[in-house]
Structure formats: structure tokens, C-alpha cells
């Protein structure tokens, strides 16, 4: 029973001081959770502390590998919105490429 921090972590330090078990530690390229120490905050808090302050959707997973903060849950930016934007960027890029080639 332990959470996991994955590579989308931006190293903001916010979670580290909150952990009741000092299970979170700074590492390269990003912070990590010691699975031996993590209790998912059961017995200490109603909500797991690291995933309650983490600003990055999807950066912390539960023991089954599920995202504790799924896309859109923190920023209000839905996956559809993001996809739409990425498509627009891609289209602009392709248009610029096409304009450059003779």
C-alpha cells in the first residue's frame, strides 16, 4: 500500500513537508515516495496529503497505478480542450512548413 510520484512531477517541494511519515524525498530527476514508509495517510488524515496539494494532474498514482488527480480535476482544463489546442498548434506548424517549402 503506497503511492508513487511519476516523471510529470515538477519538483515544487509542496508535498515533501506535508508527509506524516517522511516518506517523500528529493531525488533526480524528480521527488520520490519510499513505498516502505508511505501509508497513504491512513490514520493521520482524511485525505492523502501529497495528492491534496500536488498541482500537477496525473503526477501521483495510487497503489493500482490510477491517477489520484485525473486530467482536468485541478486546472479545469479538460482533455478535449487540451487536444483542441494541440491540434491547432500542429496545424499552424504544418502551415508554416508548407509555406516555406517551394
Amino acid at each position, binding site marked *: 500500500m503506497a503511492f508513487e510520484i511519476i516523471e510529470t512531477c*515538477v519538483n*515544487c*517541494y509542496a508535498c515533501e513537508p*506535508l508527509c506524516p511519515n517522511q516518506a517523500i524525498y528529493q531525488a533526480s530527476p524528480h521527488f520520490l515516495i519510499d513505498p516502505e514508509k508511505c501509508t497513504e495517510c491512513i490514520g493521520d488524515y*482524511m485525505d492523502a496529503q501529497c495528492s491534496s*496539494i500536488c498541482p500537477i494532474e496525473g503526477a501521483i498514482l495510487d497503489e493500482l497505478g490510477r491517477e489520484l488527480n485525473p486530467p482536468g480535476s*485541478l486546472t*479545469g482544463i479538460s482533455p478535449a480542450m487540451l487536444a483542441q489546442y494541440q491540434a491547432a498548434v500542429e496545424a499552424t506548424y504544418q502551415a508554416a512548413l508548407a509555406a516555406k517549402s517551394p
Partner: protein
Amino acid sequence: MDLPVLNASPAASAAQSGGGCDSHSCGSSDDQLGHLPEHIRAKVHNHPCYSEQAHHYFARMHVAVAPACNIQCHYCNRKYDCSNESRPGVVSEVLTPAQAVKKVMAVAANIPQMTVLGIAGPGDPLANPERTFETFRELSEKAPDIKLCVSTNGLTLPESVEELCKHNIDHVTITINCVDPDVGAKIYPWVFWKNKRVTGREGAAILIEQQQKGLEMLTARGILVKVNSVMIPGINDEHLVEVSKVVKAKGAFLHNVMPLIAEPEHGTFYGLMGQPGPTHEELQKLQDACAGDMNMMRHCRQCRADAVGMLGEDRGQEFTLDKIEAMEIDYPAAMVKRAEVHAQIERELEIKDLARAAKAELVAIQGGKQSAPKTRPVLMAVATKGGGVINEHFGHAGEFLIYEASEFGVRFIGHRKTIPYCEGGDTCGDGESALDVTIRELAGCEVVLCSKVGYEPWGPLEAAGIQPNGEHAMEAIEDAVLAVYAEMGAAGKLDARPVAQQKAA
């Protein structure tokens, strides 16, 4: 026509002219701080972020020691990290307190105009209390002449007030975007409060309550509080007039209304939603509306959380960790040098103040304002590198300061960023589009004053109704603006509509 230099707003100017004087011309300074009590002015007169006058002469820096944040704002993307962007919350690298202290000492030794060190992020400084306060603790010992200040969202401010007082921090900035939780719910998706993530209106209500409580606690202890607000059209623009009233009543001494920065490529909620920022005109209108109640700040450059140098410039690249490591610095000598440079600037400012007061008195005696003909106000753009004089080439300016000349005098309105028309050499290939950007940014201005302006941009500027003028190089900005206004008056250009409008008609 000889006119005095005005305060930021007619209302502010009128408020200060209590002692037997009845016009804008009495006792005015070029600063928005003119009517503040003496003890506050003494504290902020050399702070570039608080004093419009000081920002022409003194430098500041931010150190990015505070990456954690306890709230989410819709104008912020926590994944962001870029060296080419200039806006709050963006940094190139986060420093440890020890690295930050080293950097501050190096910058203060190399830029002797530096008076202020601020911690402003990239997260919230008070959500990183150990890192923030350790930096302050060491700096107050090693560089006691540098003023320390901090900028916060206010969520944990009440519990930090005690600690702030210990470190002799006498300036705090709180970002307050609303005093109504319904408005707040549209700006803040969540706050982290008492070990829980609290969303929506409930979260916003907690944040607002903490901000107001913190503001009251700070002003009760005599700590100067500036309030920053982000103007978000359609969300809080009208509401900010109310915010201004409330924070003034609670003792904030300065209100800084800043435009929302939101582009899709920033990846923020507002950016992706297509939420527009305000136009220059909308921003100025709101600042004027708030000015009736509050001392307004208009020279903010919304700088990065690791900015270095004068406002509007960023010399951060000169002070990266590896470069600092290679520097040999005599710290005691640097502090002596700083004291000399600061004293020199102070003397210069004193002489300017005296000259201004004398001029104002003369105008008051002659009743200059009353006898002046009714003329329309004119916006002028100025290219400057600092020092309060016109000393920048048109093509090198990355920003222009905007002044309004009117029959009442001259007042500072704000700044507009642009791409330098010509950095010289190989970047000139983009010169044409850069000029288009500058012309668009200077919309509404009828004159652009600079130390030099080339032949090429001259025509397009004139065609856009913006008269280039290089005749006042190295002159004091206000004097030059007034001189040009007087020339326009003599030429009969102040009765008619601006050229651009005539063309449009």
C-alpha cells in the same frame, strides 16, 4: 506654456494639497507617493516597485527560492519553466537559500543601484516558510542595507506575520483579485487549507478571509502593504473598484492593477479558454476609476520570480550560478560602493525635487493653470534606459513609457512592451514586423520621444499618426513631454482631433 508635473491622478494630487493650496500645482511631485505621510515616503522613496520616481534610478532583484504553492490560479501554469518569458511565476531555476544569498551578494556588488531584494515565487513564498525565511535571515545579516520584501497570495499570511516582523521586512505585497467569493470561484479552482484541498466558492471564501485578515494584521503593525490585482475582463474588472475601496480602508498604501497575461501557449486555463486580457485603454480606465479611492501604481512590469536589474530589464543571464561561482567579490567594499551610489542618486533626486517645487510655485503665483487655454490631453511614448531621461534609441527600446500631457501638466500612465525594432546586425531581418508590433502597441500615442530614431521607421510612424521626435535626447522626461506639448499647442494641434482619428474618419 509652463506646466507642473502631476501626481498619478488629479484626485491624488488634490488630496495632498491641503495646506492652503488649491490647485494641482501645489507641492506636487512626479511620484504617486506625493501625498503619503512622511514616514511612509521615507521608507519607499528608493524602492523601485513602490515609487514611480525611484524606478528610473534604483534596481531590484527577485530570488526564486519558493517553488511550492498552496492555491491554483486560472492565470498560472505550474508546469511552466522558461528563460525567454517575462511574467510572474516563471523562472529558469529554483535556488536553495544558500545559493540565493550568494546570488544576491553578487548582484548587489555588481549593480550598486540595487536597493531591494524580493521573494515572489515561483510559487508562494509563505507556502515555503523555511526556505523563504532562511534566505531573509542570512541576508539581513550579510547585506543589512538591502531592503527585504515578499509577495504572497495571502492564504497563510496571518500565521506568518510574527515571523515576517522578526526579519525586519517592512514591505509586503498581497495579490488580491476579489473580495467576493462568487468572483473568486471563477479565478481560483482550489486552495489547500487545513490539510485538505478545498475547491470552488468555499475555497475562494477561505482565501479572501485570510487575505483580509493578513492585511489588517500587517497594517496594524506598521508594515507597508501594497495590493496587486490582476484585471480579468468580464470576471473581476468592475469588481476591482470595490477591492480598491476595501483595501484602502484597511490600510494598504498602494494598489497595483495589472493586466491579465493569457496566451494559449502558456497552457493556463484562461489562455486555453481564450479569456482576453484588457486593452491598454481598458486598463488605464480602470486604474483611473480606482484612483479616486486609492493611490495607484502604474509602473509595474510584472516581472519574473527571478528578475534582476532595473524594472523593465532582466540581467538574470549575467548572474547564473556558474558565473557567480567564477566572480571574485570584495563584499565590504561593495557595500561601501553601494552606499556611495545610493547617496549620489539621492542628491540628484533632491535637486530635481527642489527644481520641481520651485517651478510649481512659480506656476501657482502666475496662476498658470487658470489662464491656460482649454486644450486636449495627448499621450506620448518615451524610450528610456533609466535615470528619468530620454536616453534610448527608438530601435533599441524593448518598452516605452507612456505619459499624458494635458493643460494640468504631465502624468505617468504606464508602459508598453514591444520587440526592439532593430537590435542591430542579424536581427534586422525581422525589423519590419517588429515595427508593426511597436506601432500597434503605441496606439493612442501621438508622439514618440527617443534619443535617436532612424530614417526607415520614421515614415510608417508618421503615417500611423505617431510623430517621431529625437530632439530631446538626454533631457528629463517630464520637461521634454511638456515642451513638446507646448510646441503642439503653439502649432494649433491641440484643438483638433489626433491625426490618426482624422485619417480614420
